[in-house]
């Protein structure tokens, strides 16, 4: 056992007028309340964030977060691994448990500040400045190339992408903390969406969200609501598609998944649900294959069969995923764990998966440069 999640908290993901400290505070307060601990019980903390510097002129975030509990001076630091910051922060917190216990993990991000072209550029910082950014390879463009390769190799179609989008938007309607909780999306909406980077259209892309998510972890459980971390793995690969032989799979994701399954002593067939990094619809299909939930090239068929829907054999992104649940970049990986914990406890309300025992989260940085995979399990 690597440790336990004692409590989780999350803000709504979506546009917000609240500054980073207030967003972080809301998530931390909820996670502490959920865990039954007070802030003074916490021995160390990790802050996950991607664009505090470029977007908000705010670095040194561990010290900013310390301002949420003045006088309680404990070790704290910031983790940045692009969109995988949250998952990597959780992994790091778990690795620290021998030294500090309990540890607070909080992911926070604000993306609604800069105008579109500036934000696209800033998010592009997850790509290599020379290999990718200089060529205008924006984030959607990176995944568009993956989509092109996947379509060419496996015959995946834009209708398969639409199926992912419709499913995740459907799930988000049942998640009050989702970015698009209030928005119904139909095939007609998808068809009317403009192209962002061919073949990806507007509804293939996740929104950019403000938000925060937090988790309190410990080596020891506190009662039946604690959720066990059965596996935690991070793998780092080269940053650019131009440096990789494979473009339809992320080796960092399949490596991290293999290691997490090994730690947990389970295989993909024993997983009851997955929260995966669907920053674009194609990314969900790649994730399903990298996690071994489908063979390479078969995620589209699995999706079209309904197996990944709520009520299917392996629900994927019951929360709405990044696609419709929202992507508050640094908070996303922690937000996935929030969803798994709520689901494994049976606290997910309308979108509750039928008695899941094991859930997997899959959090990707850039276009597969970093991947964090966590496997969580209900106790007993």
């Amino acid at each position: 056992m690597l440790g336990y999640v004692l409590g989780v908290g999350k803000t709504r993901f979506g546009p917000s007028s609240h500054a980073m400290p207030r967003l972080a505070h809301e998530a931390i307060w909820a996670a502490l309340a959920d865990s039954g601990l007070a802030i003074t019980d916490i021995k160390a903390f990790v802050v996950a964030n991607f664009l505090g510097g470029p977007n908000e002129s705010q670095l040194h975030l561990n010290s900013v977060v310390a301002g949420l509990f003045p006088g309680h001076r404990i070790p704290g630091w910031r983790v940045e691994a692009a969109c995988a910051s949250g998952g990597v922060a959780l992994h790091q917190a778990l690795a620290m448990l021998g030294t500090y216990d309990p540890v607070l993990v909080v992911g926070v991000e604000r993306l609604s500040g800069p105008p579109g072209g500036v934000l696209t550029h800033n998010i592009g910082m997850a790509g290599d400045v020379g290999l990718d950014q200089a060529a205008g390879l924006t984030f959607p463009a990176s995944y568009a190339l993956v989509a092109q390769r996947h379509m060419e190799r496996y015959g995946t179609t834009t209708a398969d992408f639409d199926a992912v989008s419709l499913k995740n938007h459907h799930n988000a309607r049942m998640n009050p903390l989702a970015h698009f909780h209030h928005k119904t999306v139909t095939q007609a909406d998808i068809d009317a969406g403009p192209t962002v980077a061919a073949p990806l259209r507007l509804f293939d892309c996740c929104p950019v969200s403000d938000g925060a998510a937090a988790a309190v972890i410990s080596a020891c459980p506190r009662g039946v609501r604690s959720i066990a971390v059965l596996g935690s793995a991070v793998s780092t690969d080269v940053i650019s598609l131009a440096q990789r032989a494979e473009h339809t799979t992320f080796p960092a994701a399949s490596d991290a998944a293999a290691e997490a399954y090994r730690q947990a002593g389970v295989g993909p067939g024993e997983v009851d649900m997955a929260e995966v990094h669907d920053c674009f619809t194609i990314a969900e299909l790649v994730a399903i294959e990298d996690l071994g939930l489908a063979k390479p090239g078969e995620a589209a068929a699995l999706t079209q069969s309904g197996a990944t829907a709520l009520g299917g054999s392996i629900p994927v992104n019951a929360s709405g995923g990044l696609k419709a649940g929202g992507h508050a970049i640094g908070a996303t990986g922690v937000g996935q764990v929030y969803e798994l914990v709520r689901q494994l406890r049976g606290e997910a309300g309308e979108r509750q998966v039928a008695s899941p025992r094991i859930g997997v989260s899959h959090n990707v940085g850039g276009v597969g440069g970093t991947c964090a995979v966590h496997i969580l399990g209900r106790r007993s």
Partner: protein
Amino acid sequence: MSDLMCVACGVRYAYDIDPCTFCGASLTEGEPSPAIVLAVTRVDTPSTGHEDAPYWCALVKSAQGAQAIIKFDRPVEVDDEVSTSVSGTVRTYVVGIVGSGVMARGLSEMLLFRGHRVVWVGRSIGRLESARDMVADRLSRVMDETELDAAMSHCSVSPSFDALATCDVVVEAVIEELIPKHETLLAIERELPSHVYLATNTSSLPLDALSDGMSIPERFGGLHFFNPPTRMRLVEVVRAPATVDATEEFLCEFAQVVGKVPVRVAAGPGFVVNRVLMPLLNEAVRALEDGIADAESIDEAVRLGLNHPMGPLALADLIGLDVVVSIMQDLHARLGDEAYAPRPMLLALVAERRLGRKTRSGFYEYA
């Protein structure tokens, strides 16, 4: 980008490093070779630095297995062979720069920084050498000694126009007055082989007058860079009456390769930027004359209300009020519109030799 390979391990590196991190063997540079498009996407959303959407991003792979992401301004398709070298550097030009003033220095600095060769010609070898030293000093702030030596070895200075014969293109940047500019251009042109393009950096002089008497006016056009050319991204590519398509295409491509955004304009008075700017500056002076607000308030209003990086009066001081007056008088004469007639306060400041920053006094006082 780099394409370095360890012969011993077979590992490929995309960064300019040495030796191999695994075995310590020295890395070898891959040979440039044609590449095949593996995947391509049309990008429809502009972003900072890539405002020119739609454009195409392709993942390409060379016969040797080197891969790169390459940007195209035209559609390409999977399996297309593309000529852009994967491992090579960007294309380099031999550029003639004529003049030794602020613009000539800025252009040389910008070109040398980007790896191009500069043949720098001016009448006084002493002024050229001191200008070259100033450029070297500027570059030394952003390059290490080896890089600086390499860059400066790409810069030759000469008092004689015949040194320009080896250039791909010559950019004339001498004083902004018709007669000296015209005489210089004719003198340059006499020394150029027919395939060398010739451009003037004039901001407002009529190109038909400047090209009068040229033997091949078809290869002549305007390349209006903005000060400082190391930072300003716009180039107005000006088509003179005799300029042919091939010349305009070359000048646009040249501007892009040196990192600028070309905008094609006809040789009308003031092109686009000065034609739009001068009435704005003049109106700001009139607002000051009319007591609408003081200089600081006018500038702040324009900065915050129109999102300009600098207010018009501060900008006029930066350009130089004598230069502003001269451009306005030229535009007024050629366009016949009173909006371009310099305001009395502007003329009075110039008469008092308060010319802006360069005399430490203009609309503002400078320490």
